[in-house]
């Protein structure tokens, strides 16, 4: 038995997806409705989550577990609000300096190992000859590509003559990496679009329950709202067409 609430959830989802997609046609009140709803929900969600977090990780440990040491850090944290005071602005610097000091210390200890030494080790250890020609090509691209791309960012010494080809090749390597990233971005955006269209079509392959939008049975009613949305879009197109014809007729009349 399909629950009407589930169907309603599906219809609301489909309608909001349509509101966002309608921007592809033109800016319109439906798009703004979805936009404002999203902003409002995000801010409300963020605030409620922060309050929940404060309750469970600040208030409850202090009141019920006797963690009075937390009060010291809470007081220091309150220093952030002195950003708004000219007289006590210096207090704002206290949490900032602790945060920066802690963050820099942690990063220096770990980032150098994970992002620098580990990666240099890999580039050195990587055998250029792989199990097949394509792997070998990949390895050459990684090892020489790394070196050439790094040379591109040497700005203190101008490489002239034949040497000027080294940073130039490095630039091509960087552009190829950006191309790969852009191609992957397109694939990612397509994935977003495909799943939204699965939702609008009421596809049984859409993960209705795992996405928290009703059930597969309720999803099979999505097409009804999709048809209503299509009718709204056609109406928008029709009214625009009528308006443009009227404007053209008025322009002709004024010209005469």
């Amino acid at each position, binding site marked *: 038995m399909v629950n009407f609430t589930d169907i309603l959830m599906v219809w609301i989802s489909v309608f909001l997806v349509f509101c966002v997609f309608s921007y*592809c*046609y033109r800016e319109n009140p439906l798009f703004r409705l979805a936009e404002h709803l999203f902003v409002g929900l995000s801010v409300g969600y*963020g605030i409620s*989550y922060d309050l929940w*977090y404060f309750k*469970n*990780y600040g208030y*409850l*440990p202090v009141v019920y*577990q006797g963690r009075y040491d937390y009060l010291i850090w809470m007081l220091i944290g309150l220093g952030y609000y002195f950003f708004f005071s000219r007289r006590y602005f210096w207090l704002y610097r206290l949490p900032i300096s602790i945060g920066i000091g*802690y*963050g820099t210390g*942690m*990063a220096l*200890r*770990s*980032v150098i*190992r*994970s*992002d620098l030494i*580990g*990666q240099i*080790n*890999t580039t050195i*250890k*990587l055998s250029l000859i792989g199990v097949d020609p394509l792997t070998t090509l990949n390895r050459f691209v*990684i090892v020489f590509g*790394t070196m050439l791309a790094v040379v591109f960012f040497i700005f203190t010494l101008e490489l002239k003559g034949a040497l000027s080809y080294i940073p130039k090749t490095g630039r091509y390597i960087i552009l190829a*990496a950006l191309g*790969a*990233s852009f191609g*992957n*971005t*397109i*694939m*990612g*955006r*397509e*994935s*977003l*679009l*495909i*799943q*939204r*269209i*699965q939702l609008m*079509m009421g*596809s049984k*392959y*859409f*993960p209705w*329950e*795992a*996405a*928290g939008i009703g059930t597969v049975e309720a999803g099979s009613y999505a097409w009804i709202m999709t048809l209503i949305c299509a009718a709204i879009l056609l109406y928008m197109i029709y009214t625009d067409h009528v308006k443009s014809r009227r404007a053209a007729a008025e322009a002709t009349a004024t010209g005469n």
Partner: protein
Amino acid sequence: MSTWYERLENIDPRWIYLLVYIVIAIPIIIPLPSPLAITPYTRDAFEAVEKLPPGSLVVLSFDYSGANPELHPQAIAVLRHVVRRPLYIYIVGMWSDGPVMADQIWKVIDKTGYDPEDPTKLITKEYGKHIVNLGYLATTALIVGVYDTITKMMTIDFYGNSIDSLPLVKKFDGIKYASLVISFAAGSPGPATYLQYWATQNPNMKFVVGSPGVSAPGFMPYYEAGKLGEIGYVGVIISMRGAAEYETLLGEIGLTGAVAALNAQSAVHYLLVVVVILGNLGYYLRKYGGGGR
């Protein structure tokens, strides 16, 4: 009278949007089976879970928000896989929405799997005993702290249960006991944070990343590093395609819907290639075919 390529260059982009919509909708309405080659990145990620000895602890980090259909199918497939295997599971999230996403999946997923205590026995996995959602890791201090001792850093889990009362937390009171960390990462903070704060402390801990398409090239050097035993990832699941591959390897087709979406993805790829070729053709014909500006 304008030439065909001039008309093509000046086409209203809304026609292209409509064409893209139609090209995606047709394979969704008429689903057809399509061959799917498994990439080594996904296979390595799958193998990383498959090779874990029974009783191992796996950490799944949900570092994305609700608006990410690339990562949600990956997370469904991987969570099902780790539930099926005789493993213990911690769920965390560096994005506030992440643990909510995990909760949505946990509520509906098939919880049948092999018992970590007795890997020959099929059981229904229980919350608190086999899996715990630790919730949102809001700060670096928390990420660093839970590595060593969870009970010192957290008071409650995602559902508000007292951390001390959960049998799994009593068994593994720290992320340091984990053999594998899998992060589904839409951006920053993401798996790089775990590499910095967890991998640097424990070289035996393995990492897998579930990546959206846009971030995948950035993870590749770390994947090469991980394969060589350096700090990096031993597997990378890329976008919806990666989810489809994982679903296929898992042998539970239809679990995430990703396999069914691949025909639509191929169709729209072909369309985009044709549109890019036509656009460039029009540009060069105008430039060199007598109509240059």
